[in-house]
């Protein structure tokens, strides 16, 4: 996998500032270390979408086994009859490296954090390319990855989502009491499958409601 350097710099909150030679050398060496530790794994399942808005204006729908009410997610699923339940991880090795760096070098620690965050997103994008080639997708598009905890989709959706995927067995992803996943560089999501209709196919900072996000892309970055 290639490390998306622009994303790494964004997570380091450096924006468009290019690293100097010293930082560049350190980044390159930490990148090699991270790439040696990752063991990516992913699993996904195509499920039908049923239900919708009731005459009384209540929103209740099923995505496979998940009973949901999130309006933001529903917007991304417009026109979709199916969705992928999805999970992916870089594996436990990155967390071990984060723990080591926590006592070796804080500079390395923030770099591992930024690099691995960029890598899991790249890996999810790679998985989506594979998902597009599945026969059932049949020329349709994938909507943006929508994860529990984003917008009005409760974080608690993690549990039924990961259970439906049997994520611990299929990808080694487990859930902690805090509803965060372990390994920490993991993604779970619901991804609508439907005809191209102008709906965003990936996350776009410009349309995101969380305006105080530290990692929100500036106009130049997007």
């Amino acid at each position, binding site marked *: 996998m290639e490390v998306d350097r622009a994303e790494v710099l964004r997570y380091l909150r450096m924006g468009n500032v290019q690293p100097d030679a010293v930082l560049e050398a350190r980044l390159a060496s930490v990148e090699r270390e991270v790439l040696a530790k990752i063991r990516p794994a992913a699993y996904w399942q195509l499920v039908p979408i049923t239900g919708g808005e009731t005459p009384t204006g209540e929103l209740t729908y099923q995505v496979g086994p998940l009973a949901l009410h999130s309006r933001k997610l529903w917007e991304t699923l417009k026109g979709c009859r199916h969705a992928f339940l999805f999970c992916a991880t870089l594996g436990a090795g990155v967390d071990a490296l984060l723990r080591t760096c926590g006592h070796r*070098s*804080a500079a390395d620690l923030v770099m591992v954090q930024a690099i691995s965050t960029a890598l899991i997103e790249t890996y999810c994008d790679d998985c989506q390319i594979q998902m597009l080639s599945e026969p059932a997708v049949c020329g349709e598009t994938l909507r943006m990855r929508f994860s529990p905890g984003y917008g009005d989709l409760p974080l608690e959706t993690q549990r039924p989502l990961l259970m439906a995927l049997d994520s611990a067995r299929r990808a080694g992803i487990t859930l*902690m009491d805090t509803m965060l996943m372990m390994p920490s560089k993991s993604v779970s999501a619901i991804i609508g499958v439907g005809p191209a209709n102008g709906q965003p196919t990936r996350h776009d900072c410009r349309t995101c409601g969380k305006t105080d996000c530290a990692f929100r892309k500036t106009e130049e970055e997007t």
Partner: protein
Amino acid sequence: MTFDELLKRGVAFLDGAMGTQLQIKGLQPGEVPELWNLNRPNDVRDIHKTYFDAGADIVYANTFGASPAKYHGDAPLKDVIAAGIGLAREAAGGRGLVALDMGPTGRLLKPAGDFAFDAAYDSFAETVRLGAAAGADLVVVETINDAYELKAALLAAKENCSLPILATVALSEDGKLLTGGDVDCVAEIFNALKPAAAGFNCGLGPDRLRPFVERLAKLIEIPVIVKANAGIPRVVDGCTHFDVGPEAFATDIAACVAAGAAIVGGCCGTTPAHIQAVHNLMKDQKPGAVTRERRTAICSYSKCVTLPLDDSLLIGERINPTGKKKLREAYKSGDTGYILREAIAQVDAGAHILDVNAGVPGIDEPKVLQNTVEAIQSVTDIPLQIDTSDPKALEAALRHYNGKALVNSVNGKEEVMEAVFPIVAKYGGVLVALTLDEDGIPATAEGRVAIAKKIIARGAQYGLKPDDFVIDVLCLAVSADATSVPVILESLRRVHDELGLRTVLGVSNVSFGLPARPLLNATFYALALQAGLTTAIVNPLSVEMMTAYKSWRALTGRDANCTDWIAAVNEGKVGGSAAPTQPSAAAQTPQAGTASSQSPLLAAIVHGLKQDAATIAGGLLATGKAPVEVIDGEIVPALEIVGKGFESGKVFLPQLLMAAEAASSAFEVIRDVLAKSGAQTELRGPIIVATVKGDIHDIGKNIVRALLENYGFKVIDLGRDVAPELIVETAQRENCKLVGLSALMTTTVPFMEETIKQLNAADPSIKTVVGGAVLTAEYAAQIKATWYAKDAMATVRVAEEFFK
């Protein structure tokens, strides 16, 4: 028929997938499969019956997820398990054996996750007790993908029933567990905890598992199990498919049997037809003959280290408080951070194993040793040597050690053997045997060899084999007895050549009481290596010792093409080629926001050049510059430049941290020089830092700690998930007036508030500074924190103000 009788007959047959069959009968995603034992008993019984009909000797009851940690059905667990065992028993109709099936808890154990080892143990133990009470014939631990969870499950099974235990792990496509352990590593955990049979299930198809079966069969003495998937799952049109049909599956299983598998069956995607095909093909067959590999090996959760007979390995000695004041203080104050840095530095220097000793008078050694072992395993993956003379501490540490450890030590005293052997027999491990007994240390090689033989013979009564020992012929100071070294060398030679066993020595003892110890140690080390020293407890940060070790390996043909030697020379790790004395070119080039007229040290720090900063600082002191001038004139201004740069958005976090690390390396050089001249440099502090109870996210806290330390503060790092009581107790004991608390999760902020409350109640003069993703200045005020710090630099500013 008992399990033993079954194995004597030949290849034994397990059932195939349960989940797959339940899904065919209508189990929905997200439904609790075990509830079918009560709600759909006929369906469950039928599935078991079809497997017995197909030729299975053992079926797994429908209890895979029936553990308190995982089960969330509305019927009592006891009923679900009893019904599950009962249904399998009814289906057997006297034909075979019924196993209690235990899958993983679905939780990742600490330190990787948030589930405590003891909690995982308790969960498995409850299931084992319920299954045994329900009349299971066997206990199965399966689909485990983490070495630590495997250990918890096996201990729980062994300690809570007397049934035979079968254990299988799930490998990923690269042949490793989720947490990184390969087959060699898994084999040593099986060897340590000794189930009745062990192997693999799930994950892969039998063709892909065959090489792993072949390897495992060579490494363990118990029967090998393979319960493979019908290939790797593929999702097509939203449905999970397994591609390998019954006949192909049976052929691949037959290859596994030829490679040594004795117990075979199917996992995901397999059906009664698969088991029938396997049974037809392998009925009345015997497992293929296997030549076992003779070896002595230890492991961590992910790394297996084979102790060589014809080479030598390094055991890092630095986590032993004997004669180390800083380490003793770290143990006493609970400053785990110091110990972890010692661990990481030794690993980076090339140690293969780390010795861990917590023998400090006045501390609770069992608790501290266990905690230290757990903490070190959270930051390094090399195996540990657990070093204690307290059997209680040994048991606590060995029980919680993630893997199979080296144990230091037993000796020839009857009382010691009686205390240590049962612990090592129970938890597994390789044991260091000291050649001394009630009569002391023999003066001759004969005497030491005789004690080694005695210890090994006595160990055999506990099931320990000669290969489970490493012999320490004991290193005595040459200053006390001029003849000690020839006896040591002769003892090494005889143990190694005549007994064919591995040896170990604490090398540096030899020079005790003499000047220029490193040189004596290194020379003796080379002699000992040539006499047959196969593991040495040494300081891997000592250039002299590494030079002796690496040159011996290069000179005796153990370092092919001298590759390792050349690499060590280039890295400055061996003698005569210490770190570069000239700062690199980058230190000379100015960076945005800094002036080109800066001094080299200031520039090196600002640029984050750690090695250069140390070299230049050393050079300045050597040319007669006063330490205080270097600190006040160069280091402090450099830190000020980057600190201000960070605050104004011109310098970014990684650069701030690199600069701080460079400053710290310059400080270190100055401190060493001052210490040698007898002067003391006072660090400001202490400051306690901790991530509050319930929160295991410590990245932010670690950044703050590092930056504080780099800015010259003494920090006591209590780690993550820290109880308020421990923080209060430490603050009072260490007379610490500034406490930094971190929290990532909204849910853990109440613990932050509670900690502040308890600190205020205990001592109102203690101030708190808080930070973390969910905190804001308002939130901090609301929970009555003294200060809010928006980032690591802000915490440094608070500390600077506080200690002004």
